């Protein structure tokens, strides 16, 4: 287990190096050079060359990459052109907003998905199962912007119970909690259907396993059989899928962030990319990759912990 973790960590570090190099090269080299991008189309060739020298852009890629990597490691992520602040500042700011949103959404999605998935799966083919499955399929087929706009027009415009935008400042008179409700709801609606289906399939297949029959025929009551015997087995398979939702919640909720003007990571990346704000895009990409790899690793490790057959070897 320790060896496995160490190997995975080393592998992660290598991947990060590779990705950072690729991102660096892609952003700084193509298309056109950095100095030209910085100075704009009307600068003279001389000015461009001067800036190129000044920024040290004429030196070999590898040298410049190493410098860049060094700066990254010392925490200096560069200066953002669009936001006019150090990248680190804007990045942490947006990331913390995103983490808040993701954490609340995660805390809503996972219990709901497990609850309904299990309810459906324990009685495969029953009426309740059909209803849950249809419902899950329905909500996950709704596009996020549609639910976003729909819910906002009901709760913000019509009823006026909740704010229509969530800038995460309390200037508008709405508490932070109130501002989170609609974005979380939209994300949860979109994401939970898929997870319900995953949990349901897994639960249903576990309920058909002979060891469930063994437990029932020990004289155990049905709820106890489900909780003690079926649930843990049923969660092994969907566990990775559940953890992978973290990636989606962090980097994939651009639409929701845009609809609610939520100052999150996804929207920051979108803005930076459109404004060719290279430093932000580079740092953001690395963070996204890091998060993705971390959840993957955590998923693997948890999988091993949950399943003694893998943990202890066959």
């Amino acid at each position: 287990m320790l060896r496995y973790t160490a190997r995975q960590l080393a592998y992660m570090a290598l991947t990060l190096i590779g990705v950072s190099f690729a991102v660096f090269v892609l952003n700084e080299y193509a298309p056109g050079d950095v100095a030209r991008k910085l100075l704009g189309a009307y600068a003279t060739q001389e000015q461009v060359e001067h800036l190129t020298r000044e920024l040290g852009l004429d030196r070999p890629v590898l040298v410049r990459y190493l410098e860049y990597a060094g700066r990254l490691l010392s925490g200096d992520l560069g200066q953002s052109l669009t936001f006019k602040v150090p990248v680190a500042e804007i990045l942490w700011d947006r990331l913390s907003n995103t983490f808040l949103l993701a954490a609340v959404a995660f805390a809503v999605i996972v219990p709901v998905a497990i609850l309904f998935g299990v309810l459906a799966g324990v009685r495969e083919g029953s009426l309740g199962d059909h209803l849950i499955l249809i419902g899950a399929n329905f909500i996950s087929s709704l596009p996020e912007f549609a639910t976003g706009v729909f819910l906002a027009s009901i709760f913000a415009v019509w009823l006026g119970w909740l704010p229509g935008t969530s800038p995460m400042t309390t200037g508008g008179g709405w508490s932070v909690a109130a501002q989170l409700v609609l974005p979380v709801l939209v994300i949860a609606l979109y994401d939970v259907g898929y997870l319900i289906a995953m949990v349901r399939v897994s639960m249903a297949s576990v309920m058909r396993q002979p060891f469930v029959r063994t437990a029932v025929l020990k004289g155990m009551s049905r709820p106890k059989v489900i909780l003690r015997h079926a649930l843990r087995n049923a969660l092994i398979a969907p566990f990775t899928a559940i953890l992978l939702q973290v990636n989606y919640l962090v980097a994939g909720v651009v639409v929701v962030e845009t609809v609610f003007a939520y100052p999150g990571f996804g929207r920051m990346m979108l803005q930076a990319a459109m404004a060719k704000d290279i430093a932000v895009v580079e740092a953001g990409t690395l963070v996204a990759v890091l998060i993705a790899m971390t959840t993957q690793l955590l998923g693997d490790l948890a999988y091993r912990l949950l399943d003694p057959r893998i943990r202890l070897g066959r």
Partner: protein
Amino acid sequence: MSGALLSCAGLTVDYALETAGLESMGQRAVDDLSFDIAPGEALGLVGESGCGKTTVALAIMRYLGRNGRISAGTISFEGRDLGQLAPRELRQLRGGRIAMVYQDPHSSLNPVMTIGQQLMEVPLLHRTRRRAAARELAVRALSEVELPDPEGMMARYPHQLSGGQQQRAVIAMALIAEPALLIMDEPTTGLDVTVEASVLALVDRLRRRHGTSVLFISHNLGAVGRLCDRVGVLYAGRLVELGPLSQVFANPRHPYTRGLLACVPSLADERRGRLLTPIAGTLTERARQAIGCAFADRCAHAVEGLCTSQPIALEAIEGEPEHVTRCVLAERLPAFAVEGEKGPASEARPAAEPVTEPLLAARGLGKRYALGGGRGALEALRGIDLDLERGGTLAIVGESGSGKSTFARIVIGLTEASEGELSFKGKDIAHLAIGRRRRDLRQRLQMIFQNPDSTLNPSHSVGYALERTIGRLHGIGRTQSRADARRLLQLVQLPADYAERLPEELSGGQRQRVAIARALAAAPDIVVADEPVSALDVSVHAAIANLLKELQARHALSLVFISHDIALVRYMADHVALFYRGRLVEFGPAEAVFAPPYHPYTQMLLASVPDPSTPGQRAAVREAGTAVSQEIGRGCPFAARCPWRIDRLCDRVDPPVLEPSDSHRIACHLDLIDLPRTIERTA
């Protein structure tokens, strides 16, 4: 019978079939079944798959699933009608008064809970609220089923145990609440034969010690004979014969019971050279609905009208009042004798003589698999020397992990040997994987697998599969190969028009015939059959074994027959090789291997074969101590289980090869005269 512990009266179980539109379609799984089990008695229920025996067990446990329904009859247990129990009472009964042991212990145990956790649940549900007390009971139960290191077992997960140990743990779990009735559903199917014997012996001891009644459900008559006082035979959900074990086995009065007894090879009687008598046909849906005898369409004695027009009652046999059967001709059937018609094998081939010019010869053959991550190598096979003569049958016998399948894979080229040589017609093929074998060599060596489905594409007709094989082998046109395909089907005794059918329209036995036909298409010299019958129903075993035997005699085929079924090997083979943990422990002509002196392992194997013709025999066998590891160290591979082991010699030094007679070799440190000579007792 008022003294009965369990009493089924007119039990009828139906399953609703989920066919769209046909809501009312149902299948009768158990039909008007009545039997009693007295306190302390062991009753066996036997029959082929689909006969309803598992349904009986689940009906008693009231666990028929959503589709199953008891549509008539009652089951009463300790005087209470199980149909009237409230859910709470039912839970107290399950696992408390009635416990169950299942087929396939591996999947019956929860993979993510330790043995201890799973065991302790039972006393916590039924006997005590205190965890410490429950733990104590669990440890005691584990030691009672003779598992080594019960304390350590508690912390283990199911996958860390061998199959036999898992089944012992399940038995411990069943017995922990001291139930009055233990239901065992095919508890030894899938276990190695020596493990099966030791598990059966254990259950027998425990039930006598605790006075537990047993309902033992099996397709294996031998196993039933080991354990039971009375036996009932089920066919198509109906009880066709029931009586004391000795009476049913010695004087079976129903043609189906006779068929079951005659279709399994037996070690005891000399039936070599005779064909086993298979039961013709298969269990059909129509049989379940028959007004008269359900067995009529497979019965050689059937009399049209008499057997089919009216319901037939269970009636006692004259002179054996406790022995009942459901056959109108029961009293008129001839006396029962297990004898088959004379087989072609006995004429075609004289008893095996010393191998003169082997077709296939292994010398020092070995195989190691490199383990990932620099953890060294796993030795699956070492130092195998054996021969196969032209037209002969070499049986390879061993438990799982013995290397018998590795040997087969090397012969066929699915894997390469890592040392030694394997010469086929004088040419070394040990290191030639199938891709590097020339086409004619590939044709000469064919394989039949345990599961025919693995080689048949479900979406192509049987004929298509055969034609393709033929076309590829001989490069001939479609019309010619179509004719050949039909000829091949006839060769394996299938109607030629089966060529049009899809594999799923055939029964398991028929699919295996197709697989055999396909192997024969190449006109091979050697056919390697890897457990060719063990995935099939008992009544089909005989038919497939006979077919192989006949084909072999007729076409001068050489057969490498891999099996764990010693009785079947005795029936099939003229040379036998016994593998144990990757090593050859005994090799020789079948007559010599099955006669004294025995290798200690051979002796144990023979002692553990349950044999219907000698009911009640008990074997003394030891089970491998720990989960089977395939590590081959120095010394005798059998040392860990051998009752004759010479300490500090057997486990350290490779045993020498003794030659009790020409071409009969036994690898053992014992002197020739000290080798075991009887199969009843171990020292």
